[in-house]
């Protein structure tokens, strides 16, 4: 059998293999980076059909988060308020203004307002608002100062690595239950001492917290 390749083809083949391995490594790294950043439009305002201002309602007027997101303490989801909630006040206030046209159209036609989604976790993540609130995780720990936002955007990247920062060391972030809805809350200087105490008081199972099945089922 004649030789098809000259001897220096061996070197070429060898380098192809090295290049291949390098390619696989780079691919793995870039896919990981992609998976962690994709769809994480942090601090990018999400356009909405109605220019609702949290900064006015939750900030200036000081309305509690739960006035509209009333299911947040008892359900997995913090509900988007139905049009009825808007109408509690806007049946009387700023009636007929163009900014609120969408609200009145929704009320009269009995069609829900189509808000654009701000946070969309992967469907295999089972996040529960009530569990976090009951454990002393403040609204602003994940959602930032919503009371200062003119529009609405994601304040944190909400990636798995970000979740684990707290799931691995909840004592760094917990606050007393009475402060959960206080968006202006500042952690005390001795946060770790307080955090360890709260982990005890709220019966937080730190061993189970970072495990896969806590969030994925």
């Amino acid at each position: 059998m004649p030789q098809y390749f000259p001897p220096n083809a061996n070197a070429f083949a060898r380098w192809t293999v090295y290049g291949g391995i390098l390619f696989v490594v780079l691919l793995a790294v870039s896919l990981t980076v992609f998976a962690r950043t994709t769809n994480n439009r942090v601090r990018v305002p999400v356009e909405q059909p109605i220019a609702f201002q949290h900064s006015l309602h939750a900030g200036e007027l000081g309305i509690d988060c739960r006035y509209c997101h009333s299911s947040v303490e008892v359900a997995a989801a913090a509900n988007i308020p139905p049009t009825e909630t808007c109408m509690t006040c806007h049946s009387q206030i700023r009636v007929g203004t163009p900014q609120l046209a969408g609200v009145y159209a929704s009320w009269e036609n009995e069609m829900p307002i189509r808000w654009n989604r701000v946070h969309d976790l992967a469907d295999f993540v089972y996040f529960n608002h009530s569990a976090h609130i009951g454990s002393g995780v403040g609204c602003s720990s994940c959602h930032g100062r919503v009371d200062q936002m003119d529009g609405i955007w994601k304040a944190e990247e909400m990636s798995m690595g970000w979740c684990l920062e707290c799931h691995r060391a909840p004592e760094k972030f917990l606050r007393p239950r009475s402060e959960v809805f206080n968006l202006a809350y500042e952690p005390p200087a001795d946060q770790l001492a307080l955090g360890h105490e709260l982990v005890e008081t709220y019966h937080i199972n730190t061993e189970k917290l970072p495990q896969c099945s806590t969030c994925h089922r």
Partner: protein
Amino acid sequence: MRRERSTTWRNIASSCGIIFLTLALSACGRNMFDQPKAELYEASPYFSDGSSARPLVEGTVSRQRGSIDATYVSGQDENGLLSELPIPVSLGLLQRGQERYNIYCSPCHNYSGDGQGMIVQRGFPSPTSFHDQRLRDATVGYFYNAMTNGFGRMLSYASRIPPEDRWAIAAYIRALQLSQYATLEDVPEDIRLELLQSQGAIR
């Protein structure tokens, strides 16, 4: 010897190539991220309102705690609106009522119940003060009924406040009414002195 070595390398190279092709051709689907199930608020083309969430069927009976007791849920019995709370009053109940009142009622009724809350300051017609004689004489069921069915310009809060919390709020409104007409004799003796001192500090 040399021949064998180059065959080995070639085998490795071709296996790597196959692995690449598999990776490249399989592509990365995101179908696990967005599974074919209706998540909360997900749009659905199947229903005329475009929402996957369906309203309750008419005549649906809630299995929520206490909902079997018609008097407890409606706030009325055969004699009309209840004049007594259907649940025992405790400090816990009043504290719960205070918290819920501050969330849902204070925007209009104000923290003190005088009807001059923030939303009223921004143009909502002022509700009657809870310290008005008419409301001081009203039964506790009257407040429960207003929260459940709405009253005047106030829409119903039944979808936001469950019955047990409505009773807690009704109890707290009673406490607010007491607070505005309280005398020093109503204060327990052991904290009377403290109160006087704190008032002295203000003056």
